[in-house]
């Protein structure tokens, strides 16, 4: 399943559809991870080579480093149809080849724009969360008014 990193735009498109499918299913999770990208970059010299003598070797790299942002549906395993119903724990499980895995590399210069977009996608997609409850406030205000009238 080792795939190429998506472009930032492609990542957002697929992330939005991943959140959407999770909603349609009615249950499930979306995992989003962000981390400093420490290897595999196009830079020929490794930006952060570990220095064994210095425990703080990675605190002040000379250049800003890119980030890697990943998204998955967390479905590493699936239940076997034959053994899954009876077997509990890891017995009935097999590797899920259809696990959704998305990843993208964010260059230091793009961080600002990326997270703005990221917030938009998440705010738009995560509609299962609790909205700000305005009805309660209204009720309270009404109640107070009624109280005032009675007095």
């Amino acid at each position, binding site marked *: 399943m080792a795939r190429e990193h998506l472009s930032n735009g492609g990542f957002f498109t697929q992330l939005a559809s991943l959140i959407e499918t999770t909603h349609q299913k009615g249950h499930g999770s979306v995992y989003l991870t962000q981390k400093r990208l420490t290897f595999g970059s196009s830079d020929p010299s490794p930006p952060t080579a570990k220095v064994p003598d*210095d425990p703080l070797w990675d605190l002040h790299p000379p250049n800003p480093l890119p980030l890697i942002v990943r998204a998955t549906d967390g479905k590493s395993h699936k239940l076997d149809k034959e053994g899954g119903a009876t077997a509990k724990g890891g017995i009935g499980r097999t590797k899920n080849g259809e696990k959704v895995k998305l990843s993208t590399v964010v260059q230091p210069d793009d961080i600002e724009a990326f997270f703005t977009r990221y917030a938009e996608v998440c705010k738009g997609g995560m509609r299962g*969360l609790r909205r700000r409850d305005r009805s309660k406030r209204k009720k309270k205000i009404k109640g107070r008014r009624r109280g005032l009238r009675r007095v």
Partner: protein
Amino acid sequence: MVYLKTPEEWQHHSALLLQARPTTTRITTKYKIPNLASPKYQKPNRRKRDGGEGEQKEQHTGSKVSRAALVLKTYDPESGVVLKLKTDKAADVGRLIAGLGRLGRRMAALPEKAEEAVMEDAEVAEQAAVGGAAAPTGKETTAAINDGKAPQAPGGGGGGGGAKKKKKGKK
């Protein structure tokens, strides 16, 4: 593992952790829609029916609407520190992701944006940066950086102070 109570606290302690271990620390955001049909959500209900009171039972069934939650987790595998934050408020999403952006800047080793709330951190980072530039591998510098950071942890207060100490012990 620590569950922090407010997004601000989580942000603050995650920033400290990232400052100490910028390469290994990762932040995972989990958006979870629970499956209410799964056995996990059936069990506690049954228990309540057996031993609980009527009122409690009604409350429990009343809240059985599929309610999504957002869990943010900052994890450093090297020291084993986990900082978690759980929320189910849609209003938090924007703020939290803006926070992820700020933490992302730290991960990328970009300078802190000038903001009042994080000025204190920025100053410390600057001090450390100056020391690091002078002699990146010297052990004296290491000590100097530690000195620079040490007064900051108690200043932050809260539960994360413990996590910070643990990390330092392991070094």
